[in-house]
C-alpha cells in the first residue's frame, strides 16, 4: 500500500476527521444506552443501603438518604458468609481451570483434527445442550449419591469439570484462526500437542478469556445444584446467601439486596480483569491483508 505521499496525507486526514465524528456519534449512543442497562444494577446497590421503609417506597430511591449499613451487618450476623465465599471461590476456580483445559483440548480435536465420527460426536454434544438442566438434575443427583460424592466438594465440582457450552464456544473460535501458522509449524515437524499449546492457545486468548468470564460467572451463580447436593452449612455457596432471604410469606429485601450486591463483586472483578484479554488484538494482526 504505497503510492504518492501527498495523496495518502490528504485522505488520511479526511479519514481521521470522519473517524472522530463516527466515534462521537457511537459514544453518545452508548451513553444513552448506558442508563437503561445499569439502572437495575444501581437500584440493587442503592437499595442494599436502604432501610425497609425506603425499599417499600412506591418510587425507588436511587440515592438513598440516609445511607445505612444495617443490611450488610444483618447478612454478616445471620449467615457464615465468609465460609460461603471460600467454598464458592474454591469450587468456581477449580471448575474454571478444569474447563479451560478439557474444553480447549476437545475443541482442538473438533476444530482441527480429522477423525471418523467427528460430526456425529459433535452433534451429540450439541444435542445434550438442549435438554434443560431442571430435568437432568435428579438423574445426576442419583449418580452423585451412587458415587457417595453428595455433601462434598467433589460433588459440587465434578459435574462441571466438562462443559459442552465451553467446548462449543472454543471450537467456534478455533475455526476462525487461520491455518497458516500451523501449516508452517507442521512442516517444521511440530506435533498436535505442540500446535495446540504453542499456536492455538496463544492465538485464542480472547476466546479463552471469554470462557473464563462465562464459566466463572456460571459456576459462581450456580444455585440449583449446590442446593440439592449439599446438606452441611459448612459447604454451602454464595447464591444460597441470596435465596436465604426469600421465604414463603416474607422476603427480606434489604438483606437480600446486600447479599446480592456482595455476591456480584467477585464476578465483576473477574470480568474487569479478563475483558482486557478479550479485546486484546491477537497476534495475527501482523498478517492477513495479503
Amino acid at each position: 500500500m504505497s503510492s504518492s505521499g501527498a495523496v495518502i496525507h490528504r485522505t488520511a486526514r479526511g479519514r481521521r476527521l470522519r473517524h472522530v465524528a463516527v466515534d462521537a456519534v457511537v459514544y453518545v449512543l452508548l451513553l444513552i444506552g448506558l442508563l437503561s442497562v445499569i439502572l437495575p444494577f444501581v437500584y440493587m446497590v442503592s437499595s442494599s443501603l436502604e432501610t425497609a421503609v425506603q425499599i417499600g417506597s412506591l418510587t425507588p430511591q436511587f440515592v438513598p438518604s440516609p445511607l445505612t449499613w444495617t443490611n450488610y451487618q444483618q447478612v454478616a450476623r445471620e449467615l457464615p458468609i465468609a465460609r460461603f465465599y471460600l467454598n464458592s471461590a474454591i469450587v468456581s476456580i477449580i471448575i474454571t481451570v478444569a474447563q479451560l483445559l478439557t474444553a480447549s483440548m476437545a475443541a482442538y480435536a473438533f476444530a482441527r483434527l480429522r477423525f471418523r465420527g467427528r460430526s456425529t460426536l459433535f452433534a451429540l454434544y450439541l444435542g445434550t445442550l438442549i435438554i434443560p438442566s431442571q430435568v437432568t438434575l435428579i438423574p445426576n443427583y442419583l449418580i452423585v449419591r451412587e458415587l457417595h460424592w453428595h455433601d462434598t466438594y467433589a460433588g459440587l465440582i465434578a459435574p462441571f469439570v466438562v462443559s459442552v457450552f465451553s467446548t462449543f464456544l472454543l471450537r467456534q473460535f478455533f475455526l476462525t484462526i487461520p491455518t497458516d501458522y500451523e501449516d508452517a509449524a507442521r512442516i517444521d515437524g511440530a506435533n498436535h500437542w505442540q500446535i495446540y499449546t504453542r499456536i492455538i492457545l496463544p492465538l485464542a486468548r480472547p476466546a479463552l478469556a471469554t470462557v473464563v468470564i462465562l464459566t466463572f460467572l456460571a459456576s459462581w451463580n450456580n444455585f440449583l445444584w449446590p442446593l440439592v447436593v449439599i446438606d452441611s452449612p459448612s459447604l454451602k455457596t454464595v447464591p444460597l446467601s441470596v435465596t436465604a432471604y426469600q421465604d414463603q410469606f416474607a422476603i427480606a429485601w434489604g438483606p437480600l439486596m446486600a447479599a446480592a450486591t456482595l455476591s456480584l463483586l467477585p464476578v465483576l472483578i473477574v470480568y474487569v480483569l479478563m475483558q482486557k484479554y478479550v479485546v486484546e488484538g491477537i497476534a495475527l494482526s501482523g498478517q492477513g491483508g495479503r
Partner: protein
Amino acid sequence: MRPFAPSIERLQVSMARRRSSRPGEHRKRGDGRAAILFLLPDFVGFFVFTLLGVIGTLVISFTHWDLVRAPTWLGLENYRTLAGDPLFWQVVKNTASYTVAVVPISTALGLLVALGLNRRLPGTVVLRTAYFAPFITTLASAALMWQWIFDPNRGLIDSYLYMLGVSNPPAWLNSSVWAMPALIIFGVWRQIGFSMVLFLAGLQSVPRPLLEAATVDGANAWQRFRSVTFPMISPTTLFVVIISTIGSFQLFDQAFVLTSGRFGPDNATNTLVGYLYQKAFVDLNMGEASATAWALFIIIFAATIIQLVAQRRWVHYE
C-alpha cells in the same frame, strides 16, 4: 461503490482460498489417535455427568415415575398426554414467540454494542462493564426493579406514557396481551451483555490490516462490515444464535421471577421449562417432565437444523 468492487473480489478470492485449505484436508491420513487423546478428558466428564443423565431422561420419558415408587413402563403414553394438553401447546407457542423476538433483537444489539465498544475510546472499560451488568445482576433484584418499571399505577414506562398523553397505556404484566412483550423486553435487556462479550472476542480475529486495506480501497463503514467483519465473525455469530436460541427455548428463571412464580396472567408468560418444572417439582411426575424435555429437544433440534442448513449461506470458516 464502483471503485471498491475489484477489491471486494480480491478479498473474497483470498478468503475463499483460505477456506479451501480447511484443517487437515490436505492430509490423507486421519488423526484418530490424537483425537482420542485430546477428547478423552472432555468425553469422560461429558459421558458421566451429561450423557447418562440425558439418556436417563429419555428412558424416564417412556415411564410413569413419581420419584418414590419404581418407574413403570408406559410407552408413548406421556407424549400422547402432552399432545392432548392445550396448556402444552400454549407454552410451546409462548416460548417460540419469545425466542423469535429475543434472539434476533439481542444478537443484533449485542453486535452493535460490541462494534461500538471495540473502538479505543476513553471510558470503554467502564462501558464494557456496564453493558455486561444486566447479564450478571442477581435476577431477584433485577425482577423487583422491572416489576416497578412495568407497574401500571406508578411505573416508569406508563408514567412516561401518561405524560406523553397516552390515555390507556399497556398494563404490561397485568395483561395477557402485554405480559409477553414485557418479558421480551426484560429478556433482551439481560441478553445483550452476553452476546456483546462473545462478539467482542470474535471481533478480535478480524485482522486490522484487512480492514485498513479495505479503507484504503475506499470502502465505507457499512461495506467494510458487510465484506470483511461480518464474514470473519460469522462462526461467532452462529455460536451466539444457537446458544441464544437454546437459552430462549429453555427460558424459566426470568419468567419465574418477573411474574412472582406465577407465569401469569393465565399462563401468558408460561414457558416449556416452566411447564416442565411444574410437572417435575410440583406434581412429581418425572415421566411427563422428561417427555416435555424431549419434546423441547425435537423442537430445538428442528430449529438448529434449519440454522445449520441456513448457515451454509452466510457462515464462513477460516
